[in-house]
């Protein structure tokens, strides 16, 4: 009885403690390389160059016109690009899944391939397409917000198209046939059967796109428009161009707060619904 009792107790206690220990190493990596740096960014933002605690940097950064313009640009570009991606991604998905043509599979894969590319590639090719000396000779279009928005739409459309396509493959063809047999015209079927079905997936993809476009850096950097400064660009120029760490940290804190808010919202909404179509894995 005594040996049996020992055999009973030991594994029970072991299974209660060891999962925590096993989870520790990856969490230490994360804490050291992500959490600790982020905390220091926060601390740095309220510390001036002489190591004194002050809110002076916050005051001067938040008062500056370039900061206001950067926030405006960031939100406008992200919002417009996300709207564009939602429209284009839904259109692509609906055509590819419901009005297929020979080669539509290859087209879908081509759009998918964009996901594996760095975003600055799009910006680079835009300098040839839309640059003053390029194919379309559009003058200053390259250096406008609209060009940045167009580039981001190009790059981020797959993030909406993929979940939408995945949702459409779960939509049984019979349902469309039944809707049509009941007398619904294609427009009505699209509006009343197809779009409601894929709406959650599109919304999830759109939310992720909004998050990523808010943080987009490569495209804006490579297009290099002097007037189109976004928050990440501001962090970059304050941080490594003028080496003003405290100011860069203030902008970074604002940026992280904005993203974290959106991210929490995103997880709240889509985790609960279990919409795996909006997985962070592209």
């Amino acid at each position, binding site marked *: 009885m005594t040996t*049996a009792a020992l*055999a*009973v*107790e*030991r*594994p*029970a206690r072991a299974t209660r403690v060891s999962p925590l220990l096993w989870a520790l190493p990856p969490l230490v990596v994360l804490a050291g390389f992500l959490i600790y740096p982020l905390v220091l960014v926060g601390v740095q933002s309220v510390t001036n160059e002489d190591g004194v605690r002050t809110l002076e940097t916050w005051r001067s950064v938040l008062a500056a016109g370039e900061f206001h313009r950067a926030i405006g640009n960031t939100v406008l570009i992200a919002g417009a690009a996300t709207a564009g991606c939602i429209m284009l991604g839904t259109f692509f998905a609906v055509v590819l899944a419901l009005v297929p043509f020979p080669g539509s599979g290859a087209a879908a894969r081509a759009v998918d391939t964009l996901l594996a590319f760095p975003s600055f590639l799009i910006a680079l090719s835009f300098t040839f397409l839309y640059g003053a000396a390029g194919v379309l000779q559009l003058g200053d279009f390259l250096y406008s917000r609209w060009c940045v928005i167009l580039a981001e739409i190009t790059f981020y459309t797959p993030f909406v198209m993929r979940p939408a396509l995945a949702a459409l493959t779960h939509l049984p063809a019979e349902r469309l046939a039944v809707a049509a047999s009941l007398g619904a015209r294609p427009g009505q079927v699209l509006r009343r059967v197809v779009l409601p079905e894929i709406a959650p997936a599109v919304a999830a993809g759109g939310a992720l796109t909004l998050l990523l476009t808010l943080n987009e850096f490569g495209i804006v950097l490579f297009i290099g428009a002097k007037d189109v400064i976004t928050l990440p660009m501001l962090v970059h120029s304050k941080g490594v161009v003028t080496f003003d760490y405290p100011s860069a940290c203030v902008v970074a804190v604002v940026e992280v707060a904005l993203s974290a808010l959106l991210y929490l919202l995103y997880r709240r909404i889509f985790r609960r619904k279990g919409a795996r179509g909006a997985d962070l894995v592209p």
Partner: protein
Amino acid sequence: MTESSAVQFDRVSVRYGQVTALRDFSLDVATGETVALLGPSGSGKSTALKALAGFVRPTSGRVLLAGQDVTGVPPHKRGLGVVVQQYALFPHLTVADNIGFGLRARRMRRAESARRVEEMLELVGMERYGRRYPRELSGGQQQRVAIARALAIRPPVLLLDEPLSALDAQLRADMLDELRQLRDELPDIAILYVTHDQTEALTLAHRIAVMRDAELLDLDTAQGLYRQPPSEFTAAFLGGANLLPATVRDANGTVDVGAVTVNAMAPGPLVPGAHVRLAVRPHTIGVRRDGSGLAAVLTGLQWRGANYRLTCLIAGLDEPGGVSVHADVPSVDGLPRVGSPVRVRLPEHGAAVVARAGAASTAGDAGESFPQNLAGVA
């Protein structure tokens, strides 16, 4: 039932938070015996198996293997053979490596383990498939491999969790035959077989444990449970018996159903005048246009190939709205039309008095006629 028990559940309960998956479950399985845990989904039968295998830990109670308390022993030290519903064959290993998995875990020498694998492949008739991968096999073949893998470690106890549920109807019947043969070839193994299918339980099991709502409801030999169901639930679940209200006439089992008197089998002496339920199998009921029997109206008629299933509504019998019974009759000409009056004839022998009501329904004072749980009566 104590010394020779290969498996013993001793008042085992399993709770997940607020949900009780298994309540106060006790059961002995002897070496060489096959016991089926039969019940609808959510009845706790799979939980009982998992508690035995060590996949879930009982909240209270003990699990014993060959008299040893193994309640807190991890699964890899229990040495049981387990076959799960979807087989869980390791997709990255060949059939031979799957079967040899347990042997390798036990560090058996290669030559010996290869011999054992061959032996097992032969046992399940899969000699030529050793080098295949699971995905290259049919459902029935996968099932055989899963059984061979479980048996390769020569376990004293084999646990089968709905092993046929992933197969289609024809294949299931064939595999049932094979399982029955296999059972007879393994006289030294205790088998616990979890299923929701009464045919599987009746075909394979020496004894059947009927589970319901996380509890063991009835336990008896397959024949005993079928002939003399101890509860209304078992009567209906095992063989789909009709349950008719009856009044006891004498202690030997003569009961009145309305105006008809029947000699029924009784689990023990009956109390005259008590209200009980009579379990009558559909194939023993006769339906005539006229003559003797209970007056009824034919309300449904279904052709089932070999026979017809008739549904008749018997008026009266102290039930508001009457009592509906099913009868299976051979396909003959001259069946009455739906809606016409008929006579329902109960069998003179073969009907059984059900002692206990199911927990959900009431049968007057029938329960008091037999205060004991009759599960032990064989």
